[in-house]
Each structure stands twice: as C-alpha cells, then as structure tokens.
C-alpha cells in the first residue's frame, strides 16, 4: 500500500521553514527556527563564568544545553520543570552541537544554550538544534560549521522527511493489537563535513532502510543549512 502524506507533501519535502536570528536582545546570540507548526527559540549566553567550581574544565570551555517546552506548547499541558524526556533531549542536543564548537580559548567557562519550544507539532528537538546552531553562530563563537537537523520517518514502506505529530503517531491496530507504527529517526548533520552528530531511532526498521533514512536526512539537511545561512546573512548591522 503506497503511503500518501496527509498534507500532500512529497516524501523528501519539509514543512514550511522559517528562521530568524537575533530574536532575544539580552542574549549573546539567539534564533527562532520552525518546521511548520513546530516553533523553537534558542538563546546563547556565554562564554561566561561557570558555577559550580567542580564543573569547570581547565583545558577548555563547557557547552551546556537546556531543552524544554512551554507548558502550553502541547495539546495536553506539560507541567513546568524538567522531565526525563527534556533532560535526555538536552543531553543529545549538547552532543549534537559539541563537535563543531571550539572552546579552547575559554577554559573554565561555560556556554549556555537555552532552547524553548513555543508550539509543538513533532520534530521539536530538530527545530531546537537548528535554532541553537544559529544562535551559537550569532553569538560569535568559533565553529567549524553549522549543524542542521531533521526528523526522518518510516511510515509503511515510505521513508519521509520532517514528521508531523500525526505522522509520528501513525499506527494501524487490529483487534487492539498494534501491527504497524511509524519509526521516528531524528538526525543532525554537520554542514561541511557531512558527519552525523545526532542519530536516534525508535520503531521497527530494516538496516538498509535506515541507510536510506540517513541518506535522505543528509540531502534534506543540506537544504536546511542554506536556509540557516540566509537567516544569518540577513543580520547585517545590529
């Protein structure tokens, strides 16, 4: 059964992307990035002094990412405060961005990246990483390249880019038993080297399908990188 996407998109098509830099004046760098209805804002403060003392690294600065969602960004209210999910996403986001940052010039300091989801319709961690990458560049940090992320999904036999919540939740049940469900694969790609800094998966997929998914992610992320670049280049003066 050939799968058709509900909103009529092609398999390799993302939702409408909007990217804007410099959205939070107090921050050293900031950006907004959205995939359709999923909107993320990232703000960077740093390098700055790091407390508590025991976290200080004498050889280079530390990168700390905090991902969270506004309580009203989701359909059922999310209680304020970190959840296990947001802690994990914070962690993998840090790992996705670390490879491009050079903080050797700032030992014993920290670069704090705060990511907030204003409105959620799946792919929020990818929107967050895209916003964070822009915010880090906007903050004038030394980076080898940008980081671009997209969620890839496998629905039935189709490998598609940029899942919506409906697509993420896609499942077919028979007699109360789940027979088919979507597989969700968030991927982050480094813009110049093409290396993968974020790769997660949950679902059910064959190895060669996963290879296909990664290849599609690279292709789509190259387009996302162009959008990120243009957003940065628009900031000419302030």
């Amino acid at each position, binding site marked *: 059964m050939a799968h058709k996407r509900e909103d009529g998109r092609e398999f390799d098509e993302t939702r409408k992307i909007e990217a804007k830099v410099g959205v939070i004046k107090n921050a050293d760098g900031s950006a907004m990035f959205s995939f359709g209805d999923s909107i993320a804002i990232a703000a960077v403060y740093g390098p700055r002094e790091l407390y508590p003392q025991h976290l200080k690294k004498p050889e280079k600065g530390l990168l700390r990412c905090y991902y969270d969602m506004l309580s009203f960004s989701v359909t059922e209210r999310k209680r304020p405060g970190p959840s296990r999910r947001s802690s994990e996403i914070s962690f993998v986001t840090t790992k996705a961005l670390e490879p491009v940052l*050079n903080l050797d010039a700032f030992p014993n*300091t920290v670069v704090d990246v705060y990511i907030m989801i204003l409105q959620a319709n799946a792919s929020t961690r990818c929107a967050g990483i895209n916003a964070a990458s822009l915010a880090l560049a906007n903050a*004038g940090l030394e980076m080898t390249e940008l980081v671009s992320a997209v969620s890839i999904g496998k629905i039935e036999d189709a490998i598609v880019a940029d899942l919506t919540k409906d697509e993420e939740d896609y499942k077919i049940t028979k007699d109360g038993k789940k027979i088919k469900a979507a597989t969700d694969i968030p991927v982050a790609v480094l813009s110049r080297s093409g290396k993968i800094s974020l790769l997660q998966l949950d679902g059910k997929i064959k190895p060669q399908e996963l290879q296909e998914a990664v290849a599609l992610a690279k292709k789509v992320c190259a387009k996302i990188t162009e959008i990120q670049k243009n957003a940065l280049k628009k900031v000419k003066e302030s």
Partner: protein
Amino acid sequence: MEKETKKKQEENEEPVEHEHKPRVITVPGEVLVSGPGYLPGEGTRREGQDIVSSKFGVIEKNDKLIKVIPLSGAYIPRIGNNVIGEVTDVTFNGWIVDIASPQAAFLPASECFGFINKRDLTEYYTFGDNIVTKIKAIKSRGVDLTMKDRALRKLEGGMIIHINPTRVPRIIGRAGSMINTIKDETGCSIVVGQNGIVWIKGTNVENELLAKEAIEMIVEKPFVEGLTEKVKEFLSSKVKKPKKAEEKKEEKEEKKESKEEE
C-alpha cells in the same frame, strides 16, 4: 614619512574602514577561498586547499591575509587592552574586577601606583567602583590587571553604557576620528574600553545622553558610508552650545566680509 606611518596605523587598527567596498558576510563552514594564494587569519582556518570561515562575521582581505571579523560575541581579553571594569570584591591583596569577559579578572594591590596602606584596600577601590584598567596577563585561571599606566584611574561622575565589543574599533574610528568627533561635538570626556564598556562624562547629563545616542547610532549601523560625517551632523544639530570665542570671531569676520562686498 607620513604615508608610511599612516599605512602602519591602518594595519594595526581593526577593522579597516572599507567604506566603498560592499561587505560580505560569511558563516561558519563556508569556503572563503581555494588554493595556495592566501593565508588563514583570525576567524578562519585552512582545510586542505580551502580557507574556511570559523565565525559569523565580515570577510576582510588584506594583501594575502584573509580574516573574518566577528559581528558579535563576548569580549576576548588581550594583553595591553584598556578596559573599564567594576570592583565586585576586595581581598587581602587586591580586587576582583568584573570586566564583562568570560573569565574573572584580578587587580593585585602591587599593580597600583602610590599604594601604601595594605590593611584596608577598600580605601583605594571599593565595591561598585568603576575603574579604567589595563590587561597585564592572561592565565588559564583568569586575567591579571594593572593600574600602572597613564590614563588608568578610578572613574567619578558621568555614566556607563554597555555596547557590543566588536563595535569598539568603529566607535573609535581611524586614528580616533569617530570618537574625537563625538567628544568635540558634545564636549564630553569619553573612555571606550576595549571590552565594550564606555564611560561618558559631560558638563551636563543632556550632552552625555547625546554622546550615548551617537554611540548607539554607530553600534546599530556600523557599515553606513560617511558615518563620521553623519554623526557630526546629528550632534551639531542637537547640541546647544554657548558661543565660543572662536565663533564670535568668525561672526565678526563674516560681517566684515559682507560690508566689503557692499
């Protein structure tokens, strides 16, 4: 002789005022140039044949050197920089100073002129004092400051504003042209710290605020052509100055000329 010193000044100042060339913005990961012709300067790196940007900023080519001048970012302390800081703590042998940079800064008592009494350091500089100080050394644990140089002192009166440190060269201008224009037009004393902290003191608050406005104008639009002239025009139209002796002399001469023409 003059030409040589001018060229030297240009090389030492950053960025060079290319008022007639379009500014090209680059982002991390972008290839700036390929091939052996160029050397990678600040904000860039060499990867094989390519020179690649490592920062979000403006591309600058000087002879064979290609640099990326950042448009934003935290102040990176450099030895010899004059900065403005605020005393946040007093220890037994010096002061901890906030210089708005990622690492802590320390001013040892031994680095101050005319220093005698070692018991109560707060008599010299105390909590909340603003000082113009110089960076003497940069260590991994922090920055060491000194007061041993002319123009370094505690600041009294006036106001302090914070600006994006990457704009400091533009505020100062080529050989100080921009900052001197602001000082002359507003009659204010102004100290621009390399760390983006600026002190302004005038004969009245209104002139201080004008100088502040002029500085903020430059921070907002640093790449506008003929900016120095525009700033001068803006200020002279707003500042109410009492007639100086020079102006009175000019008026007399003008009257004399017009009489002659008749």
